[in-house]
C-alpha cells in the first residue's frame, strides 16, 4: 500500500518520494549487506531510487546530528539526568521507521532518541523535552528516557529494560481488537535478552499471533558488559524456540535494514504472526554520555570507523545516482533545522510546579 514517507524536515528534492519498493537488484547494487561500498557501484535507473536512498541518508544523518547536538547540550548542563546515545546505531531506527505506516505503534528503549526523531517527532518539541522545558512534547515531564508522542504512535522511550515489549503486545492486541491493520514495533537491545519479559512477550505474541515486529538492536553490549558474557543463546535460536519467524540484517546498512524491515513488517501486517528482526549494529559511544568505556578495547573502537552508518548511507545515496550537491543540501538543511529547534527549545520556559503536580491523574469535571 502506497504511503508517503513524512520526514520532520522538508526538502523540496525529497518531497513526496512516494512509496518506493526496493527490488532485490537495487539492494544488491547499493549494498553488500555488510555496510561496505558496493562492489560494482552500478547506477540504478530512476530518480525514485536515488530519492529513496537520499531519504534514508537524511534519516540516518538527522539522528546523528541530533545526538551530536545533545552531546553539546549535555556538556553545557542543559540536559538533566543522564542520556544514552545511539550514535553508531542510527541506521536501525531510520531504516525500520521508513517502512512503517502512520497507524503503526512503536515502543522504544532508554536509547530512544533516534527512534523518536525517525518516527517524525517535531525537532523543537523533541529538544525542548530533552531539556525539560514546558514546550517539550511531554511538557518537559518526561525527558530523555520517557520522550513520547502518542499522536505519532510513538509509545515512548522507556527507562526500564525490556518494558517496551509487553506495551507493544498490548498495542498490537488493540490494533487487532479494533480492526486496525497496524502493527506494533518494540525495539530492544541485546542487553534485554536476559530479561524474563522478553521471553514472556515472545511466547504470548506467538501464541496469540499478534502483529508484532520485534526489532533487536544488537550492539554487542549490555550496559558495561559484552553480551557474550550475559547471554547463553542466540536470538535466532530463541525465535525458533518460540516458533517465531526471524531475520537478521546488518544494522549499520540502512538500505538493507529498510529492505528487510519492509518484508518483516508485511509478514506481521498480513496476519502471519510476530517476527523478530535482529539488527547487528555498533554502539560507538559508552552506555551513557560520559561513560569512560574502560571495558572497551581501543582497537575495536578504532575499527568502528569503517562501520559508520552515516558514511554507508551517504555512499549508498551516491551509488544510486544522487549527487554531492543533493547530499550537501540535506546536510545543511538538517543543521539549520536543528539550530532552529534548539533555539526554540532554549527559549521555552521550564515547566511549572502546578502543571506538573496536577497532571498525575486525569482531571475530572466538577463533582
Amino acid at each position, binding site marked *: 500500500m502506497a504511503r508517503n514517507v513524512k520526514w520532520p524536515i522538508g526538502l523540496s528534492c525529497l518531497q513526496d518520494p512516494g512509496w518506493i519498493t526496493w527490488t532485490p537488484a537495487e539492494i544488491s547494487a547499493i549494498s553488500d549487506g555488510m555496510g561496505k561500498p558496493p562492489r560494482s557501484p552500478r547506477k540504478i535507473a530512476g530518480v525514485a531510487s536515488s530519492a529513496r536512498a537520499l531519504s534514508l541518508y537524511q534519516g540516518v544523518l538527522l539522528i546523528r546530528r541530533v545526538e551530536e547536538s545533545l552531546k553539546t547540550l549535555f556538556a553545557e548542563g542543559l540536559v538533566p539526568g543522564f542520556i544514552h546515545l545511539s550514535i553508531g546505531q542510527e541506521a536501525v531506527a531510520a531504516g525500520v521507521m521508513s517502512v512503517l505506516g502512520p497507524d503503526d505503534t512503536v515502543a522504544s528503549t532508554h536509547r530512544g532518541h533516534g527512534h523518536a526523531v525517525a518516527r517524525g517527532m517535531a525537532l523543537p518539541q523533541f529538544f525542548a523535552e530533552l531539556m525539560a522545558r514546558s514546550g517539550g512534547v511531554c511538557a518537559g515531564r*518526561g525527558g530523555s528516557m*520517557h520522550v*513520547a508522542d502518542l499522536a505519532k504512535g510513538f509509545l515512548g522511550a522507556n527507562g526500564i529494560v525490556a*518494558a517496551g*515489549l509487553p506495551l507493544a503486545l498490548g498495542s498490537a492486541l488493540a490494533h487487532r481488537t479494533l480492526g486496525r491493520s497496524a502493527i506494533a514495533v518494540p525495539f530492544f537491545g541485546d542487553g534485554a535478552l536476559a530479561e524474563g519479559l522478553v521471553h*514472556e512477550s515472545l511466547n*504470548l505474541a506467538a501464541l496469540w499471533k499478534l502483529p508484532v515486529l520485534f526489532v533487536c538492536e544488537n550492539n554487542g553490549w549490555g550496559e558495561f558488559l559484552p553480551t557474550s558474557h550475559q547471554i547463553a543463546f542466540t536470538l535466532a535460536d530463541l525465535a525458533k524456540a518460540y516458533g517465531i519467524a526471524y531475520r537478521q540484517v546488518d544494522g549499520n546498512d540502512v538500505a538493507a535494514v529498510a529492505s528487510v524491515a519492509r518484508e518483516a513488517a508485511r509478514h506481521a501486517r498480513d496476519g502471519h504472526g510476530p517476527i523478530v528482526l535482529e539488527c547487528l549494529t555498533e554502539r560507538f559511544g559508552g552506555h551513557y554520555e560520559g561513560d569512560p568505556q574502560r571495558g572497551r578495547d581501543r582497537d575495536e573502537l578504532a575499527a568502528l570507523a569503517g562501520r559508520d552508518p552515516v558514511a554507508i548511507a551517504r555512499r549508498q545515496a551516491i551509488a544510486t545516482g544522487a549527487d554531492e550537491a543533493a547530499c550537501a543540501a540535506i546536510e545543511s538543511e538538517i543543521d539549520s533545522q536543528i539550530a532552529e529547534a534548539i533555539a526554540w527549545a532554549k527559549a521555552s520556559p521550564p515547566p511549572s510546579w502546578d502543571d506538573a503536580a496536577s497532571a498525575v*491523574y*486525569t482531571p475530572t469535571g466538577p463533582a
Partner: protein
Amino acid sequence: MTEELRYNHAVNRALTDAMAADPTVILFGEDVADAGGVYGATRGLRDRFGPARVLDTPISEAAIVGMAVGAAISGLRPIVEISFIDFMTFAMDAVVNQAAKMRTMFGGQCSIPMVLRTQHGGGAGSGPQHSQCLEAWFAHVPGLKVVCPADPASAYGLLRAAIDDPDPVIVVEHKALYATRVPMPDALPVLPLGRAAVLRPGRDLTIVAYGAALRAVSEAAGILAAEGVEAEILDLRSLQPWDEAAVLASLARTHRLLIVHEAVEAFGIGAEIAARMADIGFDELDAPILRVGAPFMPSPVAKALEQRYMPNATSIIAAARRLVA
C-alpha cells in the same frame, strides 16, 4: 425465595454491564475465559462477548499487566486479573513504572484507563504466598488508584467506577468474601471512588476499616454495644484516594479513632490515616489513635495461628476498650 446477590456474581455483573456498554472494554488474565476465574467471577463472559474480548493468558503476570498498559494507550479499556495479589510481585514494573507514571511522564498526552482486579487476604490457611494484603504498596504509588470492596453492592459499584475511570485502578477483592451474599438490593449504583460509607452510626469511637476486616469490626461493634459503647463504623471502600473528609467528620463526632485492617500493621494504610488525623484532626482527639492489624510476620498456615494472626473481634474490642477507658 428472596433473590440474593453474591459477591462474585456482583463482580461478574459489573464486568458484564461494562462490557455490554462499551465495546472497547476487554478482559484477559489467567483462567478468566475457559475456567471463568478462580472464584467464578468471570464465568460466562467469553460465551457472551466472544474470544476476541475475553482471553485466557499463559502464566505471565509481568507481560499480562504490561500488555494491559499498552492496550490502554492504544484505544482499549482493558481489565486484567491477577488471581492472587501475592503474584503482583512479577507485575510490579508494569504497574509502578509504566501504568502509574505514564500520564506524568508523557505530559498528560494520555490517560491509562485500565483496571487490575486481584484478591487478597487470609482465613483459608493458604500461607505466606497466597494470603498477603499488599494493597498499601499500590496506595503508596502516585498515579494509581486502589479500591477494596467489602460487600456485594460495593463489589459492583466500585468495579463499575473503576472501569469508567480514566486512570489505572487496582481493585482488591477478598477471597473470603466471594461467597458472601446479601438480599438483592433495589438498585446497584456506581459508587464514586474516594468516598467512604458510614456502616453504623455511633457516638463513642470511630472504627475505620475496609474489606473483609469489616466483618470482625461489625461483630466487635455488636459486643461493644452490649457494654454500652457505641462504635461508628466507616467502610473506607477506596484506599487511594481515601476519604479524609469522612474520617475527619466522624472523628469530630466521636473524638476517638481506631483503624483496623487485615494487612500488616506496620507502615500500612492505618499508619497513613493515623498520621493525617493526628495532623488535621488533632484538636478533635481525646485519646491516642490506635491501629489493629496483622503482626510483623508472614501469614501462618496452621488454622489456630492464622486466627490469632488476623484481626478479630477480640483484638478489636481490646483496642476499643483502651480508647474509651
